[in-house]
């Protein structure tokens, strides 16, 4: 993959450090102090800078020294960006936490976590964005959704693979079982990332991840970066698994609606097939993630209970922000050109 085009001083600094000649990676210059970032979750420059650095741990970039992944200077820069990002993620998750003073003391922590994960994900109804895709979106609007989601789905499940060596016992076995399914259950053509790439190709869309990272807004990048933040920092493994559980448990029903939208628009079968696969697969993954994985993790390491719930709340809140950004983009584009003349609305 090529390096994405930077969009501000922080991401420019990262790109410049990566492309520095001869002597290898350079420290990321800080023309704009990371501390100046006011709204990290809405700051596209910060999110893109982080995204570019995280990608070094996945597939890297053409022509960039693979050693950059563990370059101490780049890691220092990443840590500074992550501190700002993590603080914002935690504060967003805290806002979503229930106010009850007593979180069920004396309760078994694993039971509390599975119950709470179920409760918070059941409450999450189908969002406006999903209903829009099901019933109202035009072909172009639907395609714009796929383009936005590409930064997630072209790397689908990869962050969680970093968690496997960080777990033991039943949680490890459960995650391996879930990942095996995400990775095609032994069939390369069933790899979920590949199903999404096939959907893109069926619409003559590129599968070049860099171009989608360049298009993605801050909220979308943040919703993807948070998975790398949680998965690449072992201390945040509880949050990573909570995120996974919340994601899987809020996927089946929306995917069913999105598949209907694809069928309504007569899009190529590959598009609906990607979402159809996730209706049934994620109904399984939800049970694995909430009960087998998070339940077993917390039974093993009860002190991680709050992190698991924080990760789950962060998932719902960040995905909510990304979905809202998508909805705003659609509605904004619809009302802008013919505001007064058109009363068409559905």
């Amino acid at each position: 993959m090529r390096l994405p085009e930077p969009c501000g001083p922080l991401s420019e600094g990262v790109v410049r450090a990566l492309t520095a000649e001869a002597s290898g990676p350079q420290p990321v210059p800080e023309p704009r102090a990371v501390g100046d970032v006011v709204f990290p979750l809405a700051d596209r420059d910060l999110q893109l800078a982080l995204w570019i650095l995280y990608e070094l741990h996945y597939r890297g970039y053409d022509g960039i020294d693979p050693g950059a992944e563990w370059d101490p200077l780049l890691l220092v820069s990443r840590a500074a960006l992550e501190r700002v990002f993590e603080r914002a993620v935690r504060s967003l998750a805290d806002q979503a936490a229930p106010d009850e003073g007593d979180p069920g003391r004396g309760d078994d922590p694993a039971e509390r976590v599975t119950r709470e994960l179920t409760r918070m994900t059941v409450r999450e109804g189908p969002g406006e964005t999903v209903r829009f895709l099901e019933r109202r979106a035009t072909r172009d609007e639907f395609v714009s959704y796929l383009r936005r989601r590409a930064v997630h789905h072209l790397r689908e499940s990869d962050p969680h693979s970093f968690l496997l060596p960080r777990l033991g016992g039943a949680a490890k076995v459960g995650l391996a079982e879930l990942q095996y399914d995400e990775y095609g259950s032994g069939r390369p053509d069933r790899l979920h990332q590949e199903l999404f790439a096939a959907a893109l190709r069926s619409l003559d869309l590129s599968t070049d991840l860099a171009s989608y990272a360049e298009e993605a807004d801050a909220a979308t990048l943040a919703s993807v970066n948070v998975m790398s933040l949680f998965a690449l920092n072992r201390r945040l493994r509880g949050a990573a698994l909570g995120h996974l559980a919340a994601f899987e448990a809020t996927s089946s029903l929306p995917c069913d609606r999105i598949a209907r939208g694809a069928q309504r628009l007569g899009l190529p079968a590959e598009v609906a097939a990607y979402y159809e696969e996730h209706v049934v697969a994620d109904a399984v993954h939800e049970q694995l993630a909430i009960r087998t994985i998070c339940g077993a993790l917390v039974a093993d390491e009860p002190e991680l209970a709050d992190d698991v719930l924080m990760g789950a709340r962060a998932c719902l809140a960040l995905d909510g922000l990304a979905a809202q950004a998508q909805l705003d983009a659609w509605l904004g584009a619809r009302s802008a050109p013919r505001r007064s003349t058109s009363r068409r609305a559905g």
Partner: protein
Amino acid sequence: MSPRRVTVTECPGGPLLIRGADEVVGIDGTTGTADRAVVAMCRCGRSERLPWCDDSHRAKRRRKQSTKTEKTEKAEKAEKTEKTD
């Protein structure tokens, strides 16, 4: 090699997780071929993909009704959007 093990795990308020099965017969008699290592079998009968669970047990109302009310919801939605325009 030891004989293959088939296990069934009950998920409270949710499906049965089945590991090691070749075929599953749902509550409506539909037979499904298990093409993943773990499958979730619907127990509530609300799934539109029997014998598999499609998470319909989580939906606020039956999905079948949702097609019925689709028109009214659409009208409501149109009205709402017009107001915000």
